[in-house]
């Protein structure tokens, strides 16, 4: 709702605004929806002047249609795919996190959502040399852990510091601070956070359900409305600034019972992320870092495909990488011959 104010457009002076208000026309929507002839008579202005004002206000406030061809061209040139650093996860996501979209990672406690987010942040800041915004609503992020992961990537202390500087952390614990932070980012914060030559390519919110879930349920509508607002600003940010948004969500026991949980935040949230991945523990006690990721929503890959990966992937050191894989396969061979 946009209130009519004098000076909004040429011809809309204070006298006219007062006259319109007297005729019960207070907003741009009211003006645009009314009968021009009748209104011109009531406010004793010329039909031509009022019509011109209507045309200008409409052009200023309505959304502008874009040709599909132009939109596609723009998307081709601006969309980027960010690798998560883990080849199995990348395969699941059809090469990685797409800019302009929200990707959701859901899972129960200990399923590794935050670890995956740390790994993604470290990979983007160190390997891809781009900036990352990390919004931590659970208090689970420590610089020490990020440094540990970076030390596995490179032993050069300067590179480690550079990569750490590219990760900008916001710690907040309620939805209003989250909205404040996101609106601030949209309103210039993203440009300010672009240091060291790169630009912000990813915004990670870990977790979005921690701040929204307490507001849902009961008879209040405010929770749902705030959820819509968070979704709206995340999508706008992803689209307008070409960033990949990665959010985490917890799970609830699904209504049907049995099997794993379903992502939380309900049916209204389920439409919001473009891609959704469910993370579960691997179930093999000998490999505690093993996780399985199931694709539960995607517009690009068939549903319910699974990929397995080890959380330790992001902490493995480069030199040991090949060795660890060989050791693992060697161990498996030994087990097979045992049985």
């Amino acid at each position: 709702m946009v209130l009519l104010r004098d000076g909004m457009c040429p011809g809309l002076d204070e006298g006219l605004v007062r006259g319109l208000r007297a005729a019960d026309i207070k907003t741009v929507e009211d003006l645009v929806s009314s009968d021009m002839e009748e209104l011109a008579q009531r406010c004793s202005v010329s039909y031509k002047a009022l019509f011109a004002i209507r045309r200008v206000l409409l052009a200023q406030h309505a959304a502008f249609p874009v040709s599909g061809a132009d939109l596609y061209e723009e998307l081709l040139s601006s969309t980027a795919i960010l690798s998560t650093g883990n080849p199995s996860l990348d395969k699941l996501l059809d090469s990685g996190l797409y800019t302009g979209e929200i990707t959701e990672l859901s899972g129960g406690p200990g399923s590794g959502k935050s670890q995956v987010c740390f790994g993604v942040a470290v990979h983007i800041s160190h390997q891809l040399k781009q900036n990352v915004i990390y919004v931590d609503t659970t208090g689970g992020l420590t610089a020490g852990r990020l440094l540990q992961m970076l030390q596995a990537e490179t032993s050069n202390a300067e590179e480690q510091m550079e990569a750490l500087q590219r990760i900008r952390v916001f710690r907040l614990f309620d939805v209003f601070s989250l909205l404040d932070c996101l609106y601030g980012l949209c309103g210039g914060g993203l440009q300010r956070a672009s240091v060291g030559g790169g630009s912000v390519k990813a915004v990670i919110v870990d977790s979005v359900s921690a701040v929204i879930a307490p507001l849902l349920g009961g008879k209040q509508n405010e929770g749902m409305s705030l959820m819509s607002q968070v979704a709206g600003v995340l999508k706008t940010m992803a689209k307008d600034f070409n960033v990949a948004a990665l959010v985490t969500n917890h799970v609830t026991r699904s209504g049907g019972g049995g099997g794993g949980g379903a992502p939380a935040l309900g049916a209204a949230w389920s439409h919001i992320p473009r891609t959704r991945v469910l993370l579960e523990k691997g179930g093999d006690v000998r490999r505690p870092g093993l996780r399985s990721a199931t694709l539960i929503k995607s517009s690009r890959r068939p549903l319910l495909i699974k990929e397995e990966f080890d959380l330790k992937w992001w902490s493995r050191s480069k030199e040991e990488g090949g060795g660890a894989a060989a050791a693992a396969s060697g161990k498996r061979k030994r087990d097979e011959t045992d049985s």
Partner: protein
Amino acid sequence: SEMTSQRRRREEEEVRAEMSESGAQLFARLEARRCLKDIEPRLFPGDGGPQHGEVVELYGSEGTGKTELLYHLLCRCVLPNAAGGLEADVVFVDTDYSLDMLRLVSIMESRLNSWMRENNEEACRSCLSRLLVVHCSSSSQLLLTLHFLENSFSSRPGLALLLIDSISAFYWPDRCEGGANLAKQEEKLSKCSELLGRLLRDYRITVFATCHAIRRSYSGPSSSSFSDPDRPYLCRAWQRLVIHRLLCSRQEAGNNMAATAGRRQVLTVHCTSSSSSGTKAHRSSSFYVTDGGVEFT
């Protein structure tokens, strides 16, 4: 003062002549827009399909194929006649950034591929130029945008289809803004619906709109029977506009997710068409989603 009032009257008459429709505009408005009755006969009962000025609502929860159906209908409209299309222009109103252009183009390319092997890019571009995309971020902006689109409808007689994905995007923010007053909660969408009704009558376009389900429908006897998850929840003014209602759902494959991995998920659509005499016709169809888009079984 006699002269000034005369002059003013003459001025206004001139302006009115400018403002009122030119012959070309009148023709554009009244000329029969491409009737989209044959847009997808497999969805509608009898030999039915949406007539001029009718609204089709696609209702369902996440993952039931509503947006994929919109891509299917979009491609059907913009493709050239030789490739099985209707060569009609389309406006896509995107209210929750759900339009995936990359996915749309991949569906378009696979449909063009089955018709002509080379020069796909050129054909794709010309199809995309028949599409107008507009993004709205609030129901107030939706109202203003529909007013603005009136210009597009009057100047492009080829515009036959308006797609809205989704009409329910602002339901919760509007409800919250309206406070405890139901009429206030529904006011904005009602205004949009009334305006849409007038545009439908004046320009005879066809509208397909998706509506997200707000309650998960649980299978099994333990589900709460007093709140039907498929009951329409949007305002009356919108419900009055809807002639055809397509209920989209997933075919239940049991609780064991692993069993259905890799196998294509079958989606069903149940269509209820209300006629002017008050009778309702029904039709059920099913489809699955492939790389090339929707395929009916």
